[in-house]
């Protein structure tokens, strides 16, 4: 491959697919990829190799924690407890130190030690959190795919109570985009959205751990679901964020994307989703979609109002206002924590 025609090397292109390039390099790779059929073929080949390797699945037997591990655990925890007792301050009457200055000094040393330990643990945790929440560029596609198709179907269904999701159409994400896994009967569509349905400026826009189970009602399936499908197609085609934004705006201008139909809403009541690293599975809630309206018309974000304005489309290219209302139960009927 000539560097005159290709500003990036093939190895770099592979590294881009693996999510190994810096944000700047990844942007450069993407820009070139959009225009270069030769590189698009190479990328498709690499993705094909990865996909074919996934055919080798290893079935693991379903077992609990083996007895040897349980025994080793019990021994370790026991030793730890014993060590704690041994190293604790002597309590016999004979050894009580009465000099209050010695006590005060000892107490100060303990306080400093505890503070240092907490600070170190906190720093270490923060360090791992920073590493965990840094998603500067797109990871390889397989990192966004769920290896177990049945697990993805179950997760999609968990977005709404069984009375709704059992008869819903189910979509699953495959290499070329969302595909129908199960046809539905009631007009609802359930799926697991990925991180790229977040706002474009979200720090977790490329977080491969994001799994958002959602069930759209028929009105939302007609007018909101196409947005998710479109964003997914653009991501898989390797478009830059700027291009995606332009394409969405053009979609609304030329009426290929439609304003939310009256009554468009969705269920997000799964306890198994991961909306982002900051909120985890969040709380069960319903969401309602409108063409742009003022949040005051729903009393959203006012003191004690259960309605909040969802930031998903705020400042984005989609002319949509989205309200969130938490509900008391998860889709399986169990009680949810208060928001």
């Amino acid at each position, binding site marked *: 491959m000539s560097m005159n025609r290709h500003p990036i090397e093939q190895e770099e292109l592979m590294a881009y697919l693996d999510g190994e390039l810096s944000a700047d390099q990844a942007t450069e790779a993407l820009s070139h990829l959009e225009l270069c059929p030769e590189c698009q073929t190479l990328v498709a080949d690499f993705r094909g190799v990865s996909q074919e*390797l996934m055919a080798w699945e290893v079935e693991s037997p379903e077992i609990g*924690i083996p007895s040897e591990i349980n025994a080793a655990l019990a021994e370790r925890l026991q030793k730890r407890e014993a060590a704690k007792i041994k190293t604790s301050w002597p309590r016999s009457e004979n050894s009580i130190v009465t000099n209050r200055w010695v006590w005060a000094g000892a107490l100060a040393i303990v306080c400093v030690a505890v503070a240092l330990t907490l600070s170190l643990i906190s720093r270490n945790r923060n360090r791992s959190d920073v590493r965990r929440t840094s998603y500067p560029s797109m990871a390889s596609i397989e990192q966004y795919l769920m290896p177990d198709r049945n697990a993805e179907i179950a997760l999609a269904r968990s977005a709404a109570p069984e009375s709704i999701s059992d008869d819903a159409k189910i979509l699953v994400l495959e290499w070329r985009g969302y595909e129908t896994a199960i046809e539905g009967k009631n007009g609802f569509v359930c799926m697991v959205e990925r991180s790229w349905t977040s706002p474009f400026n979200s720090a977790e826009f490329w977080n491969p751990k994001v799994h958002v189970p959602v069930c759209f009602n028929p009105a939302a399936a007609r007018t909101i679901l196409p947005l998710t499908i479109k964003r997914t197609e653009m991501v898989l085609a390797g478009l830059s964020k700027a291009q995606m934004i332009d394409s969405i705006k053009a979609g609304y201008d030329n009426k290929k994307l439609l304003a939310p139909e009256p009554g468009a809403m969705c269920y997000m009541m799964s306890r198994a989703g991961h909306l982002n690293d900051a909120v985890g599975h969040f709380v069960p809630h319903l969401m309602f979609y409108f063409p742009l309206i003022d949040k005051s018309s729903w009393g959203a974000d006012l003191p004690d109002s259960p309605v909040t304005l969802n930031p998903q489309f705020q400042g984005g290219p989609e002319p949509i206002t989205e309200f969130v209302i938490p509900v008391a139960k998860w889709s399986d009927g169990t009680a949810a924590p208060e928001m």
Partner: protein
Amino acid sequence: MTSDEALMLEFQGGSRAAFDELFARYRKPLYGFFGRRLNNPERAEDLVQETFLAVIRAASRYEPRALVRTYLYGIALKLLAAERRKFLTSSTSGQSAPEPKTDGTPDSALWVRQALEKLDAPEREILMLREYEQLSYSDISELLRIPVNTVRSKLFRSRLALKSYLESEANKNPSLRASAAQQRRRGMQ
């Protein structure tokens, strides 16, 4: 979701629940790691157990400088190397090599396995760590003690070689390729 590293620190602090969660997260991936490299389900299960036993024994020495995932695969690689050494020793004393398991293995998986066997061992290991264990280039570099650039170039070579091999095999036997492509698509229908 609590991070693996936070769970490990909680386990260091004496939390049994934190260990249970780590076990639940990593038992299957570790089984896949050993299962693909040993072709012996019983030994794979044993070595998963040994990996977790090593974690328990060394818990007090764990420092969250590396991801738990990398730490676990580091232990797993050491156990795998020991297992292979043991096998080599026993095979020189007359014990025959275990035959690859073929009964019940889907054609597509066999095909992939045969393709991987064509690669040089170091390149195969890098490719497998990347594709199956989803480790980053720097994690692989740290585990195998080779420069990151070497990881990248070997990964590149091995992917090209695999692509070329898979293509030639697909031309010889198109049904196998179709079988591999459909493997992931087998679902509920």
